[in-house]
């Protein structure tokens, strides 16, 4: 019953604070809007990609027509690739390079002398590929010619090792494959926007700050001397902690719901198709945050020390987990794997992308384990150190 009393009074005290409404609800929503709008180019993929037909300069270095590559000529004029490339015969390498610089061509291919005869004699097919200015054009044309070379080399290898029969059997299956195919790396086949990314990241950061509310609440009990009075009453220390945690936990869940609803209504942030799992991850984050803060409280002598530690760890973990902006592959990114935010952010992004439960489960297990360790740490420390005025 004491836990219930402490929890309800904690709720009442926190909800009366006007600064709480500003800090806990308005600030995250404004921050998500600002970050989502200003950093949309950094995160996610906006809009659908299309494949444009690329103008390809073909330079066959063979002196005369009979010596030119018939295989390549047949390939570039085939229906299979006509949607992706538009071939132009060019006489010299210099002309092709000049065309690439001016933008006349998007890509260039230099065919070495004796290309066909090299293939027929069982040698490896090789072309010199020169990139143009546009990244997408380079990817498209590069994929087309890589496929061409791979196919030839594959046939060569198959014929040499398995004999001509195996080769003829394999050809029909390969013919059905398109030369270029657009796809997504995630299973659900969706992408996330900057607003979604920052909504998730800021939600986690503010959930992590809920621990700071517990810290300040516990230290205000010390500063007001009410902790001294409560300790003189028939109230166990554990009841005080649990009551406080539940009070702040309920407030943080309200904050969490407000952020999710406001970002959805105002900025169209889609939070995925697993609301119960989202709630579970938010709960785990709140538990982790509050237990960590209580640990800090038990080892800190002043409110300022505890607040500074929780602040530094919160901002540090948000940064290391890539919550401020996605980090390039480096040691910083690897360190992020040791943060709570990392596992939470990954899980929420996966939920937004409709990934399967199997892909989210490892995150759930890691978060549960982290929470268990922190709860164990709090119980152990409380028994050893206690929390007194």
């Amino acid at each position: 019953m004491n836990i219930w009393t402490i929890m309800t009074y904690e709720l009442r005290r926190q909800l009366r604070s006007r600064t709480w409404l500003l800090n806990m609800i308005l600030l995250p929503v404004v921050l998500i809007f600002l970050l989502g709008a200003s950093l949309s180019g950094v995160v996610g993929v906006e809009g659908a990609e299309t494949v444009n037909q690329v103008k390809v300069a073909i330079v066959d270095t063979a002196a005369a027509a009979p010596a030119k590559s018939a295989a390549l000529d047949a390939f570039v004029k085939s229906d299979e690739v006509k949607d992706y490339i538009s071939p132009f015969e060019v006489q010299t390498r210099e002309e092709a390079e000049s065309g690439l610089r001016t933008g006349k061509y998007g890509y260039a291919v230099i065919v070495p002398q004796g290309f066909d005869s090299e293939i027929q004699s069982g040698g490896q097919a090789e072309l010199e590929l020169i990139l143009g200015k546009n990244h997408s054009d380079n990817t498209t044309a590069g994929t087309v010619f890589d496929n061409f070379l791979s196919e030839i080399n594959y046939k060569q290898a198959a014929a040499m090792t398995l004999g001509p029969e195996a080769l003829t059997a394999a050809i029909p299956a390969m013919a059905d494959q398109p030369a270029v195919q657009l796809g997504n790396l995630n299973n659900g086949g969706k992408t996330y926007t900057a607003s979604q990314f920052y909504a998730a990241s800021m939600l986690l950061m503010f959930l992590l700050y809920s621990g700071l509310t517990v810290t300040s609440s516990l230290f205000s009990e010390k500063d007001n001397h009410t902790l001294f009075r409560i300790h003189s009453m028939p109230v166990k220390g554990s009841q005080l902690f649990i009551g406080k945690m539940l009070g702040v936990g309920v407030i943080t869940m309200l904050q969490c719901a407000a952020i999710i609803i406001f970002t959805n209504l105002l900025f169209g942030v889609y939070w995925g198709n697993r609301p119960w799992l989202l709630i579970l991850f938010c709960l785990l984050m709140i538990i982790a945050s509050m237990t960590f803060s209580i640990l800090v409280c038990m080892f800190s002598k002043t409110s300022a020390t505890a607040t500074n530690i929780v602040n530094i760890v919160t901002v540090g973990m948000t940064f290391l987990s890539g919550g401020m902006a996605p980090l390039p592959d480096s040691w910083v990114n690897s360190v992020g794997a040791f943060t709570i935010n990392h596992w939470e952010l990954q899980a929420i992004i996966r939920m937004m992308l409709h990934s399967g439960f199997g892909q989210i489960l490892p995150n759930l297990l890691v978060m549960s384990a982290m929470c268990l360790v922190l709860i164990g740490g709090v119980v152990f420390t409380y028994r050893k150190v206690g929390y007194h005025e």
Partner: protein
Amino acid sequence: MTLAVLSDVVKRYDQKLTVDHVNVNIEEGEIFGLLGPNGAGKSTTISMICGLLKYDSGEIRIDGISVKEHPIEVKRRIGLVPQDLALYANMTAAENVRFFGKLYGLRGSLLKERTEEALAFTGLSDRAKEKPSTFSGGMKRRLNIACAIMHRPKLIIMDEPTVGIDPQSRNHILESVKALNRLGSTIIYTSHYMEEVAAICDRVAIMDKGHIIACGTEKELRERVAHEEKIVVKATNITPGLISELGKHPRINRVEVVEDAVELYLPSSQSELQDILFIFSRHEGSIVSLHIEEPDLETLFLSLTGRTLRD
């Protein structure tokens, strides 16, 4: 019947004895004063009685229950009025009292009734819906008391409840303490104001350096210093020569100058009065008034604990 028993209680902080084998019995229905200079061990003793601190050895029993073995049961029987105000500034007076009442297990109509009773008792009924931040120092002190008495505890511990307040509020609090006692509560009262303790306490214990150095009624304690009298002489032209000669008198134990008066401590004033007047006359000191004071609690306190400043 004895309500609180402290038997051979010892508490150490880093090997330093803060409470040194304290033995005290507090009878049911009495107001028990606990006096002592700063660092004497009063607060530590109170914290141990309330179950806030664990004692190293000995035993404390409240209403026959061991504090060490059943702290929660003991805490139900105690109401602590802390020295520092222990209130929530962003909750009204009534909410403060209700909150602490709930933690004492009061619910429903009983909680409502006791809240109103406690606020009325401390003269705060008309300010029940206001926050303590709008209160005067005296009102905050009274609310501090209301939060500790609303569950009608058997033992009320008041740790300097009148610090820093106006005479009216102090008088109200002292009257409240007597009223609570008349209603049946046993009270442990600590204060630095000797006249308060003398006015309301049935018995007084003086603590110093972790020991109880004296314990009894005010009359019993005064008898302990009856061997020394104090003569207060108000005079003009109080010179160092005069003070020096008074100090050299073989029957005068101590000489102190307080503003325009000289205080003389000696075993018996009657036999030495003529000598004293003669010394004043020799140094051309003109006597304005002279009176002999009975030894009081303060005299006893200072004579037992010494006059050296304590931090």
